């Protein structure tokens, strides 16, 4: 029976994440994959601007902090200079699907051999719960106090569906971490992304439907329930694209 302990790649520090937030689980899964592949020393991570801005303190591999939305460009610079190293970005929905839309689309279409961990919690957490590009129709946020009105704010961006149209993408998979079975699937998806990268087979993105109890005004348990009842119907889980592009 293996002992349950902290992965080496996950720094032994207290994170700043709110109670019930799923960032901690996703961080752990990334660190477990890095440990299991034995690649901590060859891995370089790129953090975003948003709640995970300080993730550079939470991973034991070398890390860079990028400007808002620019993580895929920063990761491209690292990877092109170090093609044999593992490079991942860890980005939220505002970072990746609003201000950083150009960077993620073009990193994907170039087939950059990087792995993107994309946290979709339908809100800007760090700045206090404003409308994100992924905010659901009708969802109340600080900047959609009457609910997201699609006649005014338009529609949510479905990132995996969009990126799966691009030829450079080896893996686009949407997962969640709301229960043990889904945590295992999420970890398998992250592992797959790093394996595609190891074999230089193209761009991989793992979208994780996540919670933000604080800004949703819910308890952690209610937040997990919301992922199941409101988010998954709009953002179906599953593999949107899988296969080496080169």
């Amino acid at each position, binding site marked *: 029976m293996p002992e349950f302990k902290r992965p080496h790649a996950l720094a032994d520090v207290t994170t700043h994440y709110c109670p019930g937030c799923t960032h901690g689980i996703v961080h752990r899964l990334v660190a477990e994959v890095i440990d299991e592949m034995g690649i*901590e*020393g*060859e*891995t*370089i991570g*790129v953090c975003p601007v948003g709640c995970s*801005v*300080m993730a*550079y*303190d939470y*991973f*034991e*591999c*070398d*890390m*860079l*902090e*990028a*400007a808002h939305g*620019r993580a895929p*460009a*920063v*990761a*491209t*610079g*690292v*990877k*092109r*200079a*170090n093609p044999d*190293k593992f490079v991942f970005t860890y980005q939220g929905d505002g970072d990746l699907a609003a201000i950083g839309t*150009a*960077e993620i*689309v*073009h990193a994907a279409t170039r087939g950059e051999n990087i792995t993107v961990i994309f946290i979709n919690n339908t809100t800007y957490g760090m700045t206090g719960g404003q409308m994100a590009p992924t905010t659901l129709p009708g969802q109340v946020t600080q900047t959609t106090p009457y609910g997201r009105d699609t006649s005014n704010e338009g529609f949510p961006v479905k990132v995996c569906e969009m990126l799966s149209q691009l030829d450079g993408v080896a893996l686009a998979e949407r997962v969640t971490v709301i229960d043990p079975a889904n945590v295992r699937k999420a970890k398998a998806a992250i592992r797959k992304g790093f394996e595609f990268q190891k074999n230089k087979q193209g761009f991989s993105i793992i979208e994780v439907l996540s919670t933000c109890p604080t800004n949703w005004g819910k308890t952690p348990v209610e937040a997990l329930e919301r992922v199941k009842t409101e988010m998954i119907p709009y953002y179906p889980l599953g593999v949107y694209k899988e296969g080496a592009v080169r």
Partner: protein
Amino acid sequence: MAEKSLMKGNEALAEAAIRAGCKCFFGYPITPQTEISAYLSKRMPKVGGVFLQAESEVAAINMVYGCAGSGIRCMTSSSSPGISLKTEGISYIAGADLPCVIINVQRGGPGLGGIQPSQADYWQVTHALGHGDFHALVFAPASVQEMVDTVTKAFDLADEYRMPAVILADGLLGQMMEPVAFEDVEIKMSDASNKPWAASGHGGKRKHTIINSLYLKPDELENTVRERFARYEDVKAKHTEAVCDYCDDAETVVIAYGSTARLAKSAVEAARKEGIKAGIVRPVTLWPFPVNEINEACKNAKNVLVVEMSMGQMVEDVKLALNCSKPVEFYGRTGGIIPKPAEILAKIKEMGGKN
């Protein structure tokens, strides 16, 4: 002495970057600097380097951030409107203490402006190349040969002081052809081997490195900024450069940089032939600004003339350098118009009777 060949400024600069150990180039097309990208797209793959055309200027400078952050010598180039887009990334590069070289082949502005030569980005490059407290090294070469020679110096000083270096050219320097020789240069610090701060994968041999510009505690942020500014003082002391000609007895000292300095020098030499005691100072570094050199050159001057391809953006720095001890006048053309030596000479003559 290396053999000379005739080359366009932009292409010579690009070749010089490869010879200076630049391993990666990230760019985006914009006139009048596109030949740099075009040249490197041909040459980089042949020398095992990386050429990548980014989706935007914003992405290109952030690729530089990542590449430089992993310890690899890299460069981007653009022209004025594109540099505005890069300023976000340049601020982060400065904030994370990363070395890189940025080329600005200036064109007229503001806005889309024009595509003809200009020096209207002086304020931006010397005073506000992004948000926050920081400087970039700024070199202003005046010939194709000097552009070539500046590239190595820019990379070396960027690496030594861990700060961005800008080569401020203009459409005239970028587009004209001149004889140029490439001397063999010693390549220092082109990869991560001498950069213990680089995020290049720790290999299990050291603690992880973090490339970052975020400091949420005010005292920590203040300390990093103060440390950076202490480094700047060292740069000022050791690496400020200007070229002075005919200044010893000059009554009118002309101050101009880049291609304009060559036109102004022609005007000064024409003035000397007419018995007018004119001299010229050409700042080679715009940051650090050659304050002492200008004061020394102007010690016998009755007045000073600043000449630029702009509405007079360097004038205030000259006045500050002289502490307003001499009258400072300005002559310039803008919008892509190159001032003629005869126009500058006429202004020197007009100032002859004044003190």
